[in-house]
């Protein structure tokens, strides 16, 4: 029997997609985005269950090598080497059957908004003096502004190169961590943290938090939907803002009370199932030959990059 299209399509959260006469406001968009991101990118395990290269690596080995690569990226000061690490990251994303367009989009979507805005003024001679590439304005006398003084406004070579180094380092680090979480089930990431010496209690709190975030996001979505379905029009007057603030505060308070109550119930549930401080986890990971090959390759790669950075 063929499943009808509408049944096989999954939208982030159909209940919140209901828009009652008018466009969605910022809060709803954010909520739908977060819920969608969690369900699609993390809970769906679309890439982590694919039969790609990185998926076949032991999660502990993968976690340690990728973290080492991120640390290495932080030390490297040559832009071409960082771009080299980025190229290798893209190559392994490809080998791990990750859709490259999705991968690049996921990393680069937020970089221009935050790091791009931070680095943009530093490209100009006002912050980074140097050889001008493009000059926009030239003044006859020295202009004083805040703590800066300048006679022209131009983009400098040094500023542009610095910005390239900065952005490529940010993008490569984000790409590496995204690649790790895309190709590894989150439960395995959590378990692997143990091998880094993170205490068991911390790992347990982390993994429980991760699951309950999802539940709390649902509760928040329902609160917004409940309010929206009972509101005809929001007035943007002073009184409207005050009401809105009251509403937000009361909902945060309610979420806090709910969380607290829930933590007691969870505690009772855990104790009644035999929980008493000590936590045992089943280690099912086994080091295979491919893990050894990968470890040797990553260590050689890291050594090579450091050698090129410091000694050549």
């Amino acid at each position: 029997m063929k499943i009808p299209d509408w049944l096989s399509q999954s939208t982030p959260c159909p209940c919140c997609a209901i828009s009652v006469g008018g466009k969605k406001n910022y809060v709803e968009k954010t909520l739908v985005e977060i819920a969608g991101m969690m369900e699609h990118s993390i809970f769906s395990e679309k890439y982590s269950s694919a039969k790609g290269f990185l998926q076949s690596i032991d999660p502990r080995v993968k976690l340690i090598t990728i973290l080492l690569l991120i640390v290495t990226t932080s030390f490297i000061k040559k832009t071409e080497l960082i771009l080299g690490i980025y190229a290798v990251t893209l190559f392994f994303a490809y080998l791990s059957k990750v859709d490259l367009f999705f991968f690049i989009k996921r990393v680069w979507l937020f970089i221009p908004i935050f790091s791009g805005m931070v680095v943009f003024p530093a490209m100009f001679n006002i912050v980074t003096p140097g050889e001008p590439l493009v000059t926009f304005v030239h003044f006859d006398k020295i202009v004083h502004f805040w703590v800066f003084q300048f006679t022209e406004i131009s983009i400098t070579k040094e500023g542009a190169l610095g910005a390239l180094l900065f952005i490529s380092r940010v993008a490569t680090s984000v790409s590496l961590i995204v690649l790790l979480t895309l190709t590894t089930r989150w439960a395995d990431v959590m378990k692997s943290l143990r091998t880094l010496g993170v205490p068991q209690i911390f790992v347990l709190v982390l993994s429980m938090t991760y699951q309950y975030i999802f539940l709390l996001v649902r509760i928040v979505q329902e609160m917004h939907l409940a309010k929206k379905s009972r509101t005809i029009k929001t007035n943007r007057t002073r009184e409207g803002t005050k009401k809105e603030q009251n509403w937000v505060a009361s909902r945060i308070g309610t979420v806090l009370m709910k969380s607290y109550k829930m933590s007691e119930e969870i505690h009772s549930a855990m104790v009644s199932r035999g929980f008493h401080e000590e936590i045992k986890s089943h280690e099912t990971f086994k080091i295979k030959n491919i893990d050894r090959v990968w470890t040797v390759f990553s260590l050689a790669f890291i050594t090579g990059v450091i050698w090129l950075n410091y000694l050549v």
Partner: protein
Amino acid sequence: MHIPDGYLGPITWIALWIVMIPLWIIASRKLKKDLKTKNVPLLAMGAAFSFVIMMFNVPIFGGSTGHAVGGTLIAIVLGPWAALIAVSVALIIQALFFGDGGITAIAANCFNMGVVLPFVGYYIYRLISVNADINSSRHWIGAGIGSYIGLNVAAIFTGFEFGIQTILYPAVNGKFQYFMYPLNVSVPAMAFEHLLVFGFVEAIVTLMVVRYLQQTDPSLLGLSARTTSTERIPAGVSV
């Protein structure tokens, strides 16, 4: 305020890891003693709450919105050491799974938002609300002032960590290596936006939630005080 990878040079982020590791150990020991088996679900819910609170956008003047970190609020309800762990866990999840905040910068972010913010906020709150009746307005006034100052001190710390990069890693051939603005730019820039915008968001959220809890469930506000005085939560405390 989430510092990404690549903003801080190795000296700064390694130093902050060295500061944070003992603090995490002290915090977990303290909680283990105070809360026993209860700490796992309580901290997990605290961390999940800290994550979710960042989703509520609060309208402020001029039609703009902003969100709160909630560090002081969690410290008022769960105590500052529990807030340290709860905010840290939320930040680690954001760094690992959402690419929000860097991996090398986890310790720096946990220091600013998980140590400086809740501890400053909490102790100012305690100072103002000491011996106050549970319905006293000193509770919400203290919470508002505490969270405002806490957030701003945390922002100044962040600006300082940014600003010292130009001293630790001076530009090579005119090309900057890490964060590129000097202290006299980074600190005022961070302080400015937090003093004028985010500080008020944090204060409004914290004081209004504390007022709401005073009216609906004051036992939550007395909780952290009771924990420190009797070293454990009485079994009968429920919501």
